[in-house]
């Protein structure tokens, strides 16, 4: 259920790497419960944008508000606490390959839960997250023993274990076959329904976008070039927009 209240607000964000201006006065608003897809060419700055939002990369200028907090004003401890409300699914999954699946899922709890809480609730939280992604039987396996699709699901389970209010997805279906990609997209929708999360989804997989997006922003040359529902953008006559939807 999409609410009017903005959960993330990005205002006139700029980021350059040397002479390469990746983001130019980029702005967006994400409402509670909304799935917002950022669409753009490879190297257009989509991943940089969400890494700025989670403060893995510092922007050159502009402001980012998450849950009414300007993240540039937060110290490291405050930012770490805020990160409990913002999940991040990495394109590479970023599972800790020296840890079991159980340890991978328990890892985010160690910062945000007390030892007593972990002793009492960690086991059930890990199992619930694994059940959500349908992989409870992998709990004592190592990431290397899993297929690409399974690893993506485990990474998603690790992302939702703290029940974040927002999830940032960095190309969640890239590198997966169309069937597995569709399963991941369905899973993203199920998780959104269950936990009422808002999401920013970086993708150029049209099936994923069609299945998940409430709204799409086209990031071209670092700017918010076009915005609308998936259906509206397909009908857009602008050639730069049309290139993305060719053949659909």
């Amino acid at each position: 259920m999409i609410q009017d209240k903005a959960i993330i607000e990005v205002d006139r964000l700029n980021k350059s790497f040397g002479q390469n201006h990746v983001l130019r006065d980029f702005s967006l608003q994400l409402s509670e419960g909304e799935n917002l897809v950022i669409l753009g060419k490879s190297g257009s700055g989509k991943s940089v944008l969400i890494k700025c939002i989670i403060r893995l990369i510092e922007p050159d200028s502009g402001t980012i508000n998450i849950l009414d907090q300007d993240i540039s004003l937060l110290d490291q401890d405050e930012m770490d606490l805020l990160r409990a409300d913002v999940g991040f699914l990495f394109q590479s999954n970023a599972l800790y390959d020296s840890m079991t699946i159980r340890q991978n899922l328990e890892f985010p709890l160690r910062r945000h839960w007390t030892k007593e809480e972990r002793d009492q609730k960690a086991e059930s939280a890990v199992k619930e997250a694994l059940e959500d992604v349908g992989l409870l039987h992998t709990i004592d396996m190592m990431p290397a023993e899993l297929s690409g699709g399974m690893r993506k699901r485990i990474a998603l389970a690790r992302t939702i274990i703290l029940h974040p209010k927002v999830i940032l997805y960095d190309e969640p279906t890239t590198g997966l076959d169309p069937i597995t990609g569709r399963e991941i997209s369905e899973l993203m929708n199920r998780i959104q329904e269950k936990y009422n999360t808002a999401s920013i989804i970086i993708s150029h997989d049209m099936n994923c976008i069609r299945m998940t997006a409430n709204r799409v922003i086209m990031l071209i040359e670092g700017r918010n070039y076009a915005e609308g529902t998936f259906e509206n953008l397909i009908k857009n006559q602008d050639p730069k927009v049309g290139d993305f939807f060719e053949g659909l």
Partner: protein
Amino acid sequence: MALLDKLDTPFFREVGEIARFTGRFFREVTKPKQEWEEFVNQSYHIGYKTFTLVGITAFIMGLVLTIQSRPTLVEFGADALLPSMVSVSLVREIAPVITALICAGKIGSGIGAELGSMRVTEQIDAMEVSGTNPFKYLVVTRVLASTVMVPILSSLAIAISLYGGYLGANLKGDVSWSLYWYQAYKALIYGDFIPAMVKTIFFGFAIGIVGCYKGYNSQKGTEGVGRSATTAVIVASLLVFILDLIAVQVADVLGLT
């Protein structure tokens, strides 16, 4: 300004970055809430899993040193000094430095490759996103473990190499167990042990910090991981020799030689 421009070279920039990284280590290590569980885990990996390699090398080192020194001492009729000479050489210099070089190879490359791989597969970013300070969890624990374990490994290497020396002395001679150890210990003073132990602490720290620095700042995919591991070994080995040279000079100034 001209001098600063001349110093603006990749070498000095790298030195500056390592200094900054080391400064961050000292800031993080003094902040509360250390990752003791991970420190113990790393101590096990760095210490226990390197012990076999260090032990075998130390044994051969003691054996070979004794076998090769014996003919020269016999020539001067000083073969009775063999245990003393071997023990002083091993304790003061050979065992600590060789142990540190082995650790630079095994631990330095291991840390460099592990952290490098974690960096390029975004695992370090994932830690940060989960609210855990990756520097404290990955770097502080490994540097501390290396700083603690290298002196311990070096002490064990001294003991094992002296035992190798005993066997070497008996290959072509006849030295009793008690006489060998009596002579070996009699030749040693605290001034031999203390500088040797102190410098291994610095060796361990250097190996840990260089391995972590190279791995933590790894770039350019799998190629970068390989480069991190290799340069970690090269820089750490070089630092061992430089620190050894400094330690000898300092011990000399302090009258410990």
